[in-house]
């Protein structure tokens, strides 16, 4: 079946560097995407979202890029900090299933000093 997935299960980043977390999706009907951060023992926390009519959106220290041609989504974190260590998930929503979000497997980001 169609699914959302992540390329890298674990990403090790040095403190102060930029992080790039990738997500591939296979459903061309998906038109809304959300990135979540999940720390150990907590629920997923909203980071940023993007709709399919956009290819880039920026937040505080984060940027999401959407490439609909290759069905690829990425989350860039600038100047990665120890507090950014967590599992990051992308979630997609299909246009005909409004509000129903499907999650990828997640990427573990480890920030090293």
């Amino acid at each position, binding site marked *: 079946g169609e699914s959302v997935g992540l390329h890298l299960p674990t990403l090790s980043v040095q403190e102060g560097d930029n992080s790039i977390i990738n997500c591939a999706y296979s459903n061309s009907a998906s038109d809304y995407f959300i990135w979540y951060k999940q720390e150990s023992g*907590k*629920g997923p926390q909203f980071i940023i979202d993007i709709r399919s009519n956009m290819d880039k959106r920026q937040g505080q220290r984060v940027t999401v890029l959407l490439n609909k041609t290759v069905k690829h989504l990425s989350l860039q974190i600038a100047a990665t900090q120890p507090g950014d260590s967590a599992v990051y998930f992308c979630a997609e929503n299909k246009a005909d*299933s409004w*509000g129903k979000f499907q999650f990828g497997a997640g990427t573990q980001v480890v920030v090293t000093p």
Partner: protein
Amino acid sequence: EAGVAQSPRYKIIEKRQSVAFWCNPISGHATLYWYQQILGQGPKLLIQFQNNGVVDDSQLPKDRFSAERLKGVDSTLKIQPAKLEDSAVYLCASSLDKTIPYFGPGTRLTVT
């Protein structure tokens, strides 16, 4: 603004026993979700409510799982009888109206 509340935070039961989880969504949020998150995986949608009606329960194992949201506010998820493979974190989320889901802290269930 208070977030999504869930209880209990942890539960340990033996297989074949029953268990119930409670969720209180963010005030005013019409959409409520229950997700199951197995260790090392992303959350999997079990059921989605819009007010007190079920929008999607296609992935809910209905032979053992049930959920209700009788007054369109808080919700309960029940498992009866539990199996070993039900060990997971059960996450409740709510959204204003099918927009960004905001998650609670989850209930970690261990079935022995």
